[in-house]
């Protein structure tokens, strides 16, 4: 089965090369980087390590970039699509375990969970915000998950074709869960380790942003 890794990157010139080198070293050759209108040399750095680099002329947000990457992978004939962060938070070692249930046909979507693994050193405030997201997701969508805003996921081709990401920014994480529920896709959480480094914390979502995302998620749900 042909697995594609989709990476949405925005101003990640410092980390993207290492992420791609690591993936390549582990044998993941089908990797597409979507440079989401970066103002730095993300595209140039990425092109040194993969021939699959597409660039948004202007910044449209992570949700939009992932959708572009997923479309690219589907066009290339992907059977499984993994979404992977550009800031080095995700570990390539976790990919085989993440895609295993999709490969075996057990589920349509595998969702990474940092709370099922003991290796993630989640900062306290972040943990509170993430657990708030878990609670809201349970109330709004009825999905019982332990980690709802983890960008490390694996989709079968069928799931990737069915899930329609319309939210351009960070709300796409909640939208994907809503789509899983609405399209009646089977899913499973898989333990993954998230590496919190000074760099990834600077580049990732701030706690305030998490609250804004939560607020928008509720609005989005109420508007439907």
């Amino acid at each position, binding site marked *: 089965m042909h697995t594609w890794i989709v990476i949405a990157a925005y101003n990640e010139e410092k980390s993207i090369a290492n992420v791609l080198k690591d993936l390549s070293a582990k044998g993941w050759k089908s990797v597409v980087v979507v440079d989401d209108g970066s103002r730095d040399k993300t595209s140039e750095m990425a092109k040194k390590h993969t021939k699959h680099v*597409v*660039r948004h*002329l*202007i910044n*449209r*947000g992570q949700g939009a970039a992932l*959708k572009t990457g997923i479309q*690219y992978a589907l*066009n290339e004939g992907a059977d499984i699509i993994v979404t992977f962060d550009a800031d080095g938070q995700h570990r390539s070692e976790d990919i085989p375990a993440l895609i295993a249930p999709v490969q075996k046909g057990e589920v349509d979507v595998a969702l990474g969970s940092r709370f099922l693994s003991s290796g993630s050193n989640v900062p306290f405030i972040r943990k509170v915000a993430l657990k708030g997201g878990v609670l809201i997701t349970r109330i709004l969508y009825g999905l019982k998950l332990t980690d709802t805003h983890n960008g490390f996921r694996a989709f079968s081709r069928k799931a990737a074709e069915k899930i329609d990401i319309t939210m*351009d920014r960070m709300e796409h994480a909640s939208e994907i869960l809503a789509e899983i529920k609405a399209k009646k896709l089977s899913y499973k959480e898989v333990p993954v380790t998230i590496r919190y480094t000074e760099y990834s914390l600077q580049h990732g979502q701030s706690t305030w942003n998490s609250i804004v995302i939560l607020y928008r998620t509720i609005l989005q749900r109420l508007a439907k």
Partner: protein
Amino acid sequence: MMEPVQIAVVIAAALLLLNICALWSRKKMSARAVFFWFLIWAVIIVAVFYPAIIGFLMMPLGSGKVIDVFTYFALAFLLFICFRLSLKANRADHEVTRLTRELALKK
């Protein structure tokens, strides 16, 4: 003899409607939108010249003062405009994303 407020409203309406006509002739505004704005300004002009009519029409609403009724309608109108603008902005945002994606995938 026209009062200063009536003169001001007529001038404002004339300028705005001229602008709207110019946009329409350049096909930058739909006939429906032109009709909508003409209607709005027609109501405003009637209200300014014949406030008694508006006061009479609004009596069932329970407000005796024309200015109160104007305030309610102005607020409702502004909310409606905000709503329409947010819908349009949202639609335009999605179109920009779609275009950006098409361009990215074409290269």
